[in-house]
């Protein structure tokens, strides 16, 4: 299981890019923290989510 935004998800083995697409996140509007560190944008395609990972996906909305 991978903890994503506080919920357990069956996402182990997926790439971060794959998970974002499957969960309908726009990759151009997110910042992703994984186990306490920011995930560089350049690693989204290769990074494979592991059992026990904890992710916080911040998905920005417009307005300011």
């Amino acid at each position: 299981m991978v903890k994503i935004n506080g919920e357990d998800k069956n996402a182990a083995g997926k790439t971060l890019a794959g998970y974002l697409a499957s969960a309908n996140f726009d990759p151009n509007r997110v910042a992703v923290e994984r186990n306490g560190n920011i995930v560089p944008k350049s690693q989204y395609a290769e990074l494979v989510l592991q059992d026990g990972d904890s992710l916080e996906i911040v998905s920005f909305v417009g307005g300011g």
Partner: protein
Amino acid sequence: MISNQKEWMDALIERHGKERQKRFSAATVAVCGLGGLGSNIAIALARAGIGKLILVDFDKVDLTNLHRQQYKVSQIGMDKTEALAENLREINPYIELETHTVRITVENALPLLKNTDVICEAFDHAEAKAMLTNLVLEAMPETYLVAASGMAGFGSANTVKTRRIMKRFYLCGDEVSDVNGGIGLVSSRVMLCAAHQAHMVLRILTEEFET
């Protein structure tokens, strides 16, 4: 009238305490985007006696800004950087201001924002917000970021909050109220979010982090 800087500083110390004010006066804070969020953030920080603000926006003051942004009719057509600097100096004549009338991009952001203690993300577009957030967290390991997401509309004031995402990354807003959902930005709710951001900046500077 204020007769000198010491008088101004003494008044701040009386309210904030000497140790806190020392940190505020020594701090450099960048405000990226000078719209409803950024103009209100900058005013709160100038009033608190932050030593130096870096103000960045490419835009000019427009009539349609006045319902929520801290500009005046007499300033329509001025660069927001220039107009806000004018307003801030009327509030705090001793603040150091650095203005950049440019659009922040991945290419130009780092030299503009170097040597800042805290960066406030105060853009309008979600993609720009994400761009700056990723850039600061990836490339500026010593700098704190206070960003905003979700402050449009007439929803409850009480859903606007500050959340710690990482030690160096704080997010203010309700995180859902998108300006593109057909609801506009309302002065009072944007000010709430800006106040959350400015307040988090002050707390970061005195190491009073959210848990």
